[in-house]
């Protein structure tokens, strides 16, 4: 790790600490009631004492998100490959996809509940529905931007469509794909919590809505902190995988050695 990245990381950490400190000080200075806005120290205390109770909900939310995410990735890759490899499919399917993606997903939760009852299934479906679209778009774009000259070179060699897809199309799509995974995992999370808030008796979303109706504001914020932490962890995980797999797209100087 170079000096520069170390300094950047220190700055990022300092900003987070500063943010919480300012929040704490502001609440103390203006005497804000913890019913309105609890101090971070109160939120962390709540997190600590209630963790045994919260933990099953964390697991519920996380597993629901992952299932919805994996299904969304599968669907997204399939649709993206289909749309990206043919101009006609691209032009035909795009308007429908745009229409589907612009529906506010909170509006489809009641429909899923109607079909499958409240609980885990609508949460999985909501997170799937909300996260597959960026993947479709990115895979399709990656495949559609293969240079025509390169395709000519390979076709003149007698390459099959599969040869071209395997050697050129898919590797070229990887940076797009991993970039979309980072977006999609955050979206899947939003979908799960959304559905849990509306129609579930488990999960962090449900904890938050219940706590808020009991005016247990510190617990609401504890839920929020958990969601933020999980979101950052998942994003970091996929960033790391992305750097490993598609470092070539970032033109980092230290690749020379490899």
């Amino acid at each position, binding site marked *: 790790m170079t000096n520069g990245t170390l300094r950047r990381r220190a700055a990022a950490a300092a900003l987070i600490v500063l943010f919480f400190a300012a929040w704490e000080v502001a609440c103390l200075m203006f005497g804000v009631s913890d019913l309105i806005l609890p101090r971070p120290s109160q939120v962390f205390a709540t997190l600590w004492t209630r963790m045994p109770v919260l933990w099953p909900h964390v697991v519920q939310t996380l597993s629901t998100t992952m299932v919805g995410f994996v299904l969304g990735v599968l669907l997204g890759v399939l649709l993206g490959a289909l749309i990206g490899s043919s101009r006609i499919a691209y032009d035909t399917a795009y308007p429908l996809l745009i229409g589907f993606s612009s529906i506010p997903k909170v509006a489809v939760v009641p429909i899923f509940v109607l079909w499958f009852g409240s609980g885990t299934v609508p949460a999985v479906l909501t997170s799937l529905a909300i996260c597959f679209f960026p993947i479709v778009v990115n895979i399709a774009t990656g495949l559609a931007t293969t*240079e025509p*000259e*390169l395709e*000519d*070179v*390979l*076709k*003149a*060699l*007698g*390459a099959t469509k599969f*040869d071209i897809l395997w*050697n*050129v199309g898919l*590797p*070229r799509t*990887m940076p797009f794909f991993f970039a979309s995974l980072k977006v999609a995992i955050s979206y899947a999370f939003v979908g799960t919590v959304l559905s849990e808030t509306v129609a579930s008796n488990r999960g962090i979303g449900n904890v938050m809505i219940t706590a808020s109706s009991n005016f247990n504001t510190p617990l609401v914020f504890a839920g929020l902190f958990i969601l933020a932490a999980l979101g950052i962890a998942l994003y970091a995980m996929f960033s790391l995988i992305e750097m490993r797999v*598609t470092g*070539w*797209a970032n*033109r980092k100087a230290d*690749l*020379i050695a490899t």
Partner: protein
Amino acid sequence: MSTALARDAAVLDGARVPATGMPNGMLPEQTAVELSDVSVTFGKGVHSVPALQPTKLRVPDGDFIALVGPSGCGKSTILKLVAGLIAPTSGVVLVGGREVSAKALRVGMAFQNPTLLPWLTIEKNVMLPLKIVEPFRAQFRSQRNNSFRDKVHALLAQVGLSGFANHFPWQLSGGMLQRANLCRALIHEPRLLLLDEPFGALDQFTREELWVVLQDLWQVRRPTVLLVTHDLKEAGFLANRICVMSARPGRILADRDVTFKRPRTIANTFEPAFVTLNQELREMIVAARAPAPTGSMGGR
């Protein structure tokens, strides 16, 4: 590989060698490429655009032909026809005595845009055709690249890129990328090499360096080369024959033999005979830029 080496050695002695038994050998015809009354029209009906008027062209095996002409005159169309990437509207394209189909040909191609894959090293990029073209394709897995790597390194050394095998494309200059691109087009020992303005985007000095590189490669390996260019000096330096084409819809206006002794040097390009040839070609192309009289295919 031994057959290829034997062939190269024999060619250096000036002997014509039958092509049988070569890895990607075509039939041992004397004629490598033959277009008989080939025309191309893009689109259908009222929107159709004639791209190429009925054209005859015969290219002997191992020859080096340059196609020059005003832009949009159908030079690249001829290359795509020969590569089997597009089908003629009328007429027949024969390559190695057989009607073309890209699958059977496995020609080497290179464009102005080097299109190397950014996620692969130069070595892996140059190796790509070996993963696709038989008989290398079958060996690719079992060999685990060792003999192929030697092959790639030998070729890279020939174009002055030894030491860059493990670099990534973005670490190389435009001229070096184009050298690698030539290697990728030649690694599977094609009998036919199609070049579409390969040096068009390079500066004059780099371009001249690469002319010499290409001439050397051609003299050692002796593939049949079709070179599309709009640089008349390039055509004169490299080719045995220059075909001058008219404005779209293209046809071959003139077919000039270039008889300067090989290996040619950049200094040769300043000699009076070379300059005269250059001027003649230039005048022909300037005249051709005026709209050509529509032929029988024109208004269809």
